């Protein structure tokens, strides 16, 4: 075949881009991905689950199922990113005055994929998933305003994640870090598919997230049930709202940054190149105009989880509700005014640095308010140290440390000393792991019984907590010290013997974190096995306050047989006190729910094809993918009959079955909530 025809057909893709790879570890990684894919396909085929998968999950527009699928995506990607992290820890521990186990180039791919995956394909899907599941229930809605768009957002994120998985098998990934700074990521220094993979994976995720943010905000503003004034919403909804607003305004800068970089790389433009008037500082501004609000996108929903968890397991109303709300709003607004602290060293005047340094420190104030509110919520509460609550304790302790090191970094003169050192790596992991990741794990444990109808095993939950907390401290506290000693981030090999003990400690911590992940896996397996012992069909295992607990576990697809009408934030608590929580409504009516459709998954698949083809310059396939995505949208607009009616009689049957079950279930006191007798009906306290 002639070279030209080959290029026309396959772009730059050649057999040599497929495994085996130059380096042993990369080859093994590729094989694991391939084996994993084959394993999933084989299992589904043997278990004859394909139909089930398509009918119940892939085509669903139900916000609860979409939420669960987001969480599954996040957990799968978390596994990969943690393995990469451990590999990096091993490398750094073994490469003091030595070669280590991976090449410098491979190490660079590792931190690039680890960072990209953790941010875009672990933390973001966790957040979108949790909000998807919980928020509509908490505001008494039947679904999000735009169920179809919701599914499109999910599948675009999944397509981005799939690009990262593909990059492990075919070709190589970017070595430009999760922030992809030019001019290094320009064609001159990074030819090849790596940066293109990064650009398109991140672009898919950012478009999906923008759509999701629009959906969340519209839902919160327009779908609240009667009586649910904004200031009666549970705090998780407020944090969801702030996150949604940040998504709406902060994702476009990322889209612009990656699009302009793509124009440079694909069309020879000069936005960020070294010559011809290009200016990489503009990239830094665009990227962090997204990047800083992004870290609040990541942390605010976790704040919401902590508020729910701490108030529920302290058996108290949240302390200082209004101050909490104002604090999140302040944080959301301020988060747009501090982006420059990511590049104090870039050469702007000291006055500019001072302004941004002070703005950064200001964020500590509303955050401090929240910490005190959480502490005061626990004060004189009847605290139950369940696994999510234990995670909350680690969070409170570690988050304060991380916040303080953040304030230290906000001083430009200090930042000049530790910029890009492991001190910074320690700081942001200190916020992201105890803050975001633990928040998501706690949320997963807290709402799992709601989603699946049975509780998670408590003992393994505590073991997981111990491993994660200890592992986090061991893995990251040494990095502060290493950073102060002068060890820079992203270094594959170092030449300072004094680093060794601290790197060893960090390595051991990472190993303990792996134990934490294994414990989470065991917890899931054990709980599924014991699911009849752990069942909580009545749906209120923790004596919850908000509306999501006022439904069966798992809730019906329409959420509420009758949409509730409330008169207070703690409407459900009041109903329980007055003994009217499980009374039948006066009447029922037909309910419309969206019909399933495979179009969103198709749009995601087309997006994957487009992104993959663009990375390899296979132009015909890229055009085809793009056209197919829009064809999906047009096709949807032609579908006439998108709703399905569930008749009132059916709603009544299901709801009365649940109410009967509730009335026959013995209520349990809070201190027996992890015992077998907890079937999901909380004792009415007076």
């Amino acid at each position: 075949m002639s070279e030209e025809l080959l290029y026309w057909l396959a772009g730059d893709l050649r057999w040599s881009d497929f495994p085996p790879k130059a380096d042993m570890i990369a080859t093994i990684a590729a094989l694991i991905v391939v084996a994993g894919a084959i394993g999933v396909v084989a299992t589904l085929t043997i278990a004859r689950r394909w139909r089930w998968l398509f009918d119940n999950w892939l085509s669903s527009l139900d916000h609860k199922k979409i939420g669960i699928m987001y969480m599954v995506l996040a957990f799968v990607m978390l596994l990969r990113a943690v393995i990469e992290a451990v590999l990096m820890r091993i490398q750094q521990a073994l490469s003091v005055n030595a070669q280590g186990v991976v090449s410098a180039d491979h190490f660079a791919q590792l931190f690039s994929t680890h960072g990209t995956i953790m941010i875009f394909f672990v933390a973001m899907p966790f957040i979108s998933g949790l909000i998807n599941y919980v928020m509509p229930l908490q505001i008494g809605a039947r679904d999000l305003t735009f169920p179809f768009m919701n599914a499109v957002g999910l599948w675009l994120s999944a397509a981005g994640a799939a690009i990262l998985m593909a990059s492990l098998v075919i070709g190589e990934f970017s070595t430009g870090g999760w922030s992809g700074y030019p001019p290094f990521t320009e064609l001159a220094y990074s030819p090849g598919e790596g940066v293109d993979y990064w650009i398109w994976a991140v672009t898919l995720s950012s478009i999906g997230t923008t759509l999701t943010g629009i959906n969340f905000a519209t839902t919160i503003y327009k779908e609240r049930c009667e009586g649910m004034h904004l200031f009666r919403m549970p705090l998780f909804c407020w944090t969801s709202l702030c996150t949604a607003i940040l998504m709406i305004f902060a994702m476009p800068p990322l889209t612009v940054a990656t699009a302009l970089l793509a124009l440079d790389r694909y069309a020879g433009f000069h936005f960020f190149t070294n010559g011809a008037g290009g200016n990489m500082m503009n990239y830094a501004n665009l990227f962090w105009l997204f990047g800083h609000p992004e870290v609040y996108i990541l942390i605010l929903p976790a704040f919401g989880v902590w508020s729910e968890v701490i108030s529920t397991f302290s058996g108290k109303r949240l302390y200082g509700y209004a101050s909490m709300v104002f604090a999140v709003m302040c944080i959301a607004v301020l988060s747009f005014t501090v982006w420059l602290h990511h590049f104090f060293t870039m050469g702007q005047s000291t006055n500019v640095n001072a302004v941004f340094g002070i703005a950064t420190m200001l964020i500590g104030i509303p955050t401090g308010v929240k910490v005190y509110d959480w502490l005061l919520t626990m004060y004189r509460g009847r605290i139950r140290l369940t696994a999510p609550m234990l995670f909350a304790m680690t969070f409170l302790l570690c988050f304060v440390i991380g916040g303080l090191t953040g304030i230290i970094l906000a001083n430009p003169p200090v930042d000049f000393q530790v910029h890009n050192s492991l001190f910074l790596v320690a700081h942001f992991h200190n916020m992201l792991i105890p803050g975001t990741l633990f928040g998501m794990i706690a949320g997963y444990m807290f709402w799992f019984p709601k989603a699946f109808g049975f509780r998670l095993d408590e003992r393994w939950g505590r073991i997981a907590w111990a491993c994660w907390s200890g592992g986090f401290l061991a893995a990251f506290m040494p990095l502060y010290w290493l950073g102060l000693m002068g060890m820079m981030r992203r270094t594959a090999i170092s030449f300072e013997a004094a680093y060794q003990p601290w790197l060893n400690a960090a390595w051991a911590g990472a190993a303990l974190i792996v134990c934490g992940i294994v414990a989470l896996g065991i917890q899931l397996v054990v709980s599924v096995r014991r699911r009849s012992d752990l069942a909580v069909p009545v749906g209120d295992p923790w004596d919850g306050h908000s509306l999501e607990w006022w439904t069966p576990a798992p809730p019906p697809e329409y959420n509420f047989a009758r949409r509730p009408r409330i008169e207070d934030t703690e409407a459900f608590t009041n109903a329980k006190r007055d003994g009217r929580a499980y009374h039948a409504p006066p009447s029922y009516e037909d309910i419309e729910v969206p019909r399933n459709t495979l179009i969103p998954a198709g749009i995601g698949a087309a997006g994957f094809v487009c992104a993959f083809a663009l990375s390899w310059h296979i132009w015909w396939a890229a055009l085809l993918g793009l056209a197919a995505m829009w064809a999906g949208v047009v096709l949807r607009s032609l579908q006439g009959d998108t709703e399905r009616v569930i008749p009132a009689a059916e709603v009544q049957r299901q709801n009365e079955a649940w109410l009967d079950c509730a009335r026959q279930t013995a209520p349990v006191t809070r201190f027996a909530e992890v015992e077998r007798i907890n079937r999901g009906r909380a004792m009415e306290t007076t």
Partner: protein
Amino acid sequence: MSAGKNLHPGINLGHSDPAGHHQAEPVMFGFWIFLMSDLVLFALLLATYSAMSVHGVAGGPEPRDVTDLASAGIETALLLLSSFTIGMASLANKYHDDGRRLLQWLGLTAVLGIGFLAMEARDFASLIAEGAVPQRSGFLSAHFTLLGCHALHVAAGLLWMAVLVLQLMATGLERALRLRFMRLALFWHMLDIVWVAILTFVFLYGAAG
């Protein structure tokens, strides 16, 4: 809530279709939010342009060399006129059930939109013929990207219009379609607003500087 109350900014269906009025509320609200998000995109491209037009010239053409005020004037006239015609289309969408009047105004809007795109294509072609290609300098990259992004939006609006018109001919003016025409009109007006910003910062400032 009465039909007279405006449930969202812009033309409300209110009196002419009370049931559709309530259905419109969340949908239109969501679309307004989308427009805000899209505006952030343009704001950033404008900011990039303003930085590049000073620092990114690299010895090549400057803003004043690439701004043709006569052409920009015609383009502005075409686009503003099309905003008027789509406004008339929106009124037809609200008050007339048969869709004929709506089609007429939309047809006019499409003609104006295509005229605008043709003028822009002509501008681009003449710049390229002079050697002022986007690969020449950071400034020209920003110039082409900002205008190109706006033109792409206009083209997308025209395609959207075409799809909706085909649906209108197939099914008549159903309620779902009414709501889509309302959103198309908002989108079109936003592109007009963006154009005013472009006219000011790219063409007027460019010609003055």
